[in-house]
């Protein structure tokens, strides 16, 4: 049985380096972009908007991506999936980042809402809402108090239920071998918390949270596909992140029971949910294109015919065409190099996707994709590596007493 694992020096260096780059970018933003000055309604101080828009995009994206790991654990637990047990510690490690990123995201969201950033969410401005029939109609849902309470409850529930799932798994390491009765009871306990998590997840990531955090940037516009679209984005990136960590650990000789069969299944998730994302992307786009109603097409007008045209179609190539053609073959899902490349590409693609969800509504035609944006992304990646790495080096990498471990060891696709 593999005992806990010492992080290699290069991992620590990369973590520190990324966080360092991120902190520099953040400080640069603080000093140069004057984040606490008002943007002005003519967009004369766009760099202050840029600061908050980039933070919003990154905190929401990375929080949803790490939270997708716990969704993966919850779903496989409920489906009685045994195959993932050998690699289960990896999604557990990634989901242990949720409290940190959740706190950061909450801080950023609160600063935006209570700092009166009506350049990000124009519904936070009371005068605007009072003279706007559409916003007035939505004000029961879109108001700072509801937003804050709902966000706080959501992040708290993700954190507490995820923590419970992780601690159940970690406790089993010390509990010794479970007989049939004990194992049965333990699995049932897992099922209870996994179902609670999935219900919360469905009511938040699957519906309300993307409405509040992202769709309310364009508060006049709405799409019923939006939440599923966001979820698909974050889940496929989450699976890619899991794949990256597995490849990293396998290359260090860890995760002895994870074979290419498991890697193949992770690759299938990346492939399948890339296609699922495209399905939602297209369904949302085509219905609006077909109906051609002015209040709906506004969202796509700036993206398809405005300055975002290049990014909009690049998005489709990165997140659909590449995964479809490259990950289709069985051999490529089992090839570490190709899978790593695709995982990085998919995460980057969906990060860009979130960027083009946030920027048109906030920055209008002044958005930039420069080192500042990537620096803030580096900060979040560094935090994920730091917390996940801490989890991986503290605990055994194989849940050795999990009743389904044997099933995972002999897993064969």
């Amino acid at each position, binding site marked *: 049985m593999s005992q806990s694992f010492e992080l290699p020096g290069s991992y620590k260096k990369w973590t520190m380096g990324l966080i360092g780059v991120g902190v520099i970018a953040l400080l640069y933003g603080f000093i140069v972009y004057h984040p606490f000055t008002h943007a002005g309604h003519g967009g004369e101080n766009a760099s202050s908007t840029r600061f908050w828009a980039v933070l919003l995009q990154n905190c929401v994206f990375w929080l949803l991506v790490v939270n997708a790991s716990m969704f993966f654990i919850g779903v496989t637990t409920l489906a009685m999936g045994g195959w993932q047990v050998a690699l289960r510690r990896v999604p557990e490690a990634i989901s242990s980042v949720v409290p940190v990123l959740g706190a950061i995201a909450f801080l950023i969201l609160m600063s935006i809402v209570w700092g009166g950033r009506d350049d990000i969410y124009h519904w936070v401005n009371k005068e605007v809402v009072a003279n706007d029939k559409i916003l007035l109609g939505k004000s029961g849902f879109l108001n700072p108090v509801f937003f804050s309470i709902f966000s706080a409850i959501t992040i708290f529930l993700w954190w507490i239920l995820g923590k419970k799932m992780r601690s159940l798994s970690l406790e089993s390491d010390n509990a010794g071998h479970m007989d049939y009765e004990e194992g049965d009871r333990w699995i049932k306990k897992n099922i209870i918390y996994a179902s609670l998590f999935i219900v919360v997840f469905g009511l938040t990531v699957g519906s309300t949270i993307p409405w509040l955090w992202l769709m309310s940037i364009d508060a006049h516009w709405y799409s019923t596909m939006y939440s599923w679209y966001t979820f698909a984005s974050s889940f496929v990136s989450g699976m890619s992140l899991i794949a990256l960590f597995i490849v990293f650990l396998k290359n260090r000789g860890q995760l002895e029971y994870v074979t290419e069969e498991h890697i193949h299944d992770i690759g299938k998730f990346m492939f399948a949910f890339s296609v699922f994302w495209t399905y939602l992307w297209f369904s949302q786009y085509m219905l609006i294109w*077909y109906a051609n109603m002015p209040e709906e097409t506004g969202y796509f007008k700036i993206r398809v015919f405005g300055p975002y045209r290049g990014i909009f179609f690049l998005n489709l190539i990165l997140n659909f065409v590449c995964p479809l053609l490259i990950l289709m073959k069985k051999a490529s899902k089992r090839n570490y190099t190709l899978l790593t490349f695709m995982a990085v590409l998919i995460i980057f693609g969906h990060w860009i996707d979130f960027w083009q969800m946030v920027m048109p509504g906030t920055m209008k035609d002044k958005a930039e994709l420069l080192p500042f944006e990537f620096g803030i992304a580096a900060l979040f990646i560094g935090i994920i590596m730091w917390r996940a790495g801490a989890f991986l080096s503290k605990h055994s990498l194989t849940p050795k007493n999990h009743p389904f471990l044997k099933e995972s060891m002999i897993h*064969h696709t």
Partner: protein
Amino acid sequence: MAGGIKKFVVGCFDDEAVLFPAVKKVRRAGYKIHDVYTPFPVHGLDHAMGLRETSLHTAGFIYGITGTTTALTCMSWIFTKDWPLNIGGKPHFALPAWIPITFELTVLFAAVGMVLTFCYLCQLSPFVKKHHFHLRATDDLFVMVIECTDKTNDAEVQAFLQDAGAKEINIQHAETGWWLGRYDREQKLYRDTELGY
């Protein structure tokens, strides 16, 4: 008939756990396994038998892109050249509206093509009578069929299967091919070197 009548030694096993080592032993001894008929799909049996990866999915991909191209070329020709119609003020080249049909045709071509290819590879067709080596292969018996060549000593093969744990052994003569020719299962395969047989 392309294949002609051939002679087979048929060994029936009633347990998966006996079948697997038997398959390995038979292959190591150098006998040519014609096929193994099982009542349900047995995990890993294809590897044990040394079957190569099927090329059915490559065929499926080709059928799929054929469907995509067919749909797109047909619709773009019909709606822009042959009979342009003004539908809701949309452009004649209305790509988003065609995507669902393109998708459906891709799936249709891939699915139908793969079913037909599968039938061809397995030599299944209406009005073609297939020889059953043992009727209980569809119920509860694992039936291993070994093809005899000119040099095979069938008594020896029978004794060998007896040793390997077969419950019932007999010799049968059967047709192996039909008018479209036979899909030959390769016996020397990449897994052999990997597993050290």
